[in-house]
């Protein structure tokens, strides 16, 4: 029986996000909040391992009250329990403070039931740093394994597991002791459509919610904005690429114009030849 904890985050859907051109800020209201797509893969992998080996999957999130919705989405995928830490004290956390708070929550979950494995997504689509997973692993002093794209085997009795880590040109097969923390790539699995029973369960599900006072031995100085070494000093819209020069005329003429522009940069081609 395995107890797997997946860390999940609710994020604004960056695909539909709109910028306010006057203030250069994001119009958060314009973007629906969704479960971070990478975290769906983390939860799915946990559920697959549970189905194979038996056990239970808990998900944990740090976020504002509406993040309950993201937990429900995980129940739809097949998670059993959801925990949320939510408190003003956590606001403004960078990855160092986030991993600190989450580690405290994970410690509390492990008192309820010891944890064998923690799975995070590769990154979020809003902050997209990919730093929170390794941060949690270091704080718990368990091995962090990032870029995992396959779980080969897991042996709880013998206390180890074997995974594939994606490399730039292939993968490596790594054996690690348990417990450990994986950050998973999205290729690791496909998240299937939710089943009807899971949807029903999710709709009614109420996660356990802890405030900062519920977490033991917590050092408030390490939380939120105060506990964050990095500060976002300035935010601006990325420079708009200058509108392209559209060629004119019929296809042949346009192609000729393009050709003359590109071939004028002869050095591009000679350099390439030199490097061959």
């Amino acid at each position, binding site marked *: 029986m395995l107890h797997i904890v997946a860390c999940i985050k609710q994020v604004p859907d960056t695909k539909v996000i709109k910028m306010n051109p006057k203030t250069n800020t994001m119009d958060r209201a314009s973007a629906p909040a969704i479960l971070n797509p990478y975290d769906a893969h983390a939860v799915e992998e946990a559920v697959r391992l549970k189905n194979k080996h038996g056990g239970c999957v808990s998900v944990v999130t740090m976020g504002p009250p509406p993040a309950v919705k993201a937990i429900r989405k995980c129940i739809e995928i097949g998670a059993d329990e959801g925990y949320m830490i939510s408190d003003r004290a956590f606001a403004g956390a960078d990855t160092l403070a986030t991993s600190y708070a989450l580690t405290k929550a994970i410690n509390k979950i492990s008192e309820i039931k010891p944890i064998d494995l923690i799975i995070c997504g590769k990154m979020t689509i809003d902050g*997209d740093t990919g730093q929170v997973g390794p*941060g949690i692993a270091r704080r718990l002093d368990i091995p962090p394994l990032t870029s995992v794209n396959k779980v080969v085997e897991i042996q709880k009795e013998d206390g180890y597991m074997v995974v594939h880590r994606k490399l730039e040109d292939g993968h490596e097969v790594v054996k690690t002791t348990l417990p450990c923390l994986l950050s998973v790539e999205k290729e690791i699995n496909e998240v299937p459509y939710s089943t009807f029973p899971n949807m029903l369960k999710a709709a009614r599900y109420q996660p356990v919610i802890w405030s900062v006072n519920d977490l033991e031995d917590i050092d408030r100085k390490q939380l939120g904005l105060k506990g964050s070494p990095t500060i976002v000093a300035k935010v601006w819209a990325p420079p708009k690429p*200058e509108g392209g020069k559209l060629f004119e005329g019929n296809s042949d003429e346009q192609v000729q114009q393009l050709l003359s522009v590109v071939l004028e940069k002869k050095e591009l081609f000679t350099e390439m030849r030199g490097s061959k």
Partner: protein
Amino acid sequence: MSFEDYSGVWVFIEENEGKIAPVSLELLGAGRTLADKRGVELAGIMIGENVTGLADTIFEYGADTVYVYDQPIFKLYRTESFMKALLHCSEKYKPEIILYGATSTGKDLASAVATDLPTGLTADTTELDVEEDTGLLLASRPAFGGNIMATILCKKYRPQMATVRPKVMKALQPEKGRNGKLVPEQIDIKEEDMRTKVLKIVRETTKKIRIDEADIVVAGGKGLGSEQGFELVHQLARTLGGVVGASRDVVEAGWIGHHHQVGQTGVTVTPKIYFAIGISGAIQHIVGMKNSGIIIAINKDPDAAIFNSCHYGIVGDAFEIVPLLVKEFHKALHGEEVEV
């Protein structure tokens, strides 16, 4: 923490099978500028087995000092062992800034080191500057899927750390024979104490094509209609000696493998020439290619967003334009002008 104790700019030198990762050389270029502005040393830190010989290259690319941990335990990258060496070195010499490539190794290592130090870590930086007098690192990065840029500071902790995207900084022209101070270091780590073991490395030869390293990328989108239509993209790429890129929708349709995907969830490319053919120009695609030298878009819809992100555009049907391009480039490049 007394900031006066911290001095110098460091670059973590990533090495794979005896070769220095290009991003590390790029970071030495960027680091040189920062170090000069501060009037401090630029150092490379290298961890591996049989790597000391690479120090010369690091000097030639701008480092004043190279710290080397050359021990069998570092033959293959592992977070645990590399992190220990880096912490050891940084505690001993106290740099004010450490830069890492935002590669899977660099990000993995930097996140672990930042937690233990502890200090701030700015992710995926694309612009770097430093305040001359205070030494405050100004690290700017895209966030929210490239929708915004943010400048991140780490005012109260040292060292300041950042991972930096490959291909956005420029390596210096190497100066042959340029020399510096080599500092061999050692750390006592036993294999028995390691909790992770690399059992095997599998190189996938089909993945030989590295679109992030190509000078010319010819990328196609859903506008090509089908896998057969997408063949046009391959043809143009072959003619130009470039590699094939694709939008996510094309990858999801199964016309080409995932490692050809350009964009937020694919690969970031910075070729000298980028063709976007039948690609609409969604923000997630743009963030992966916007730093290319010349961006050329071909789309039959004059209002396609891609035309806001390209240098040159042709409004037209790919099935008419691309065969013409193939023919004309063939004539120009393989005929008399240049042989590629």
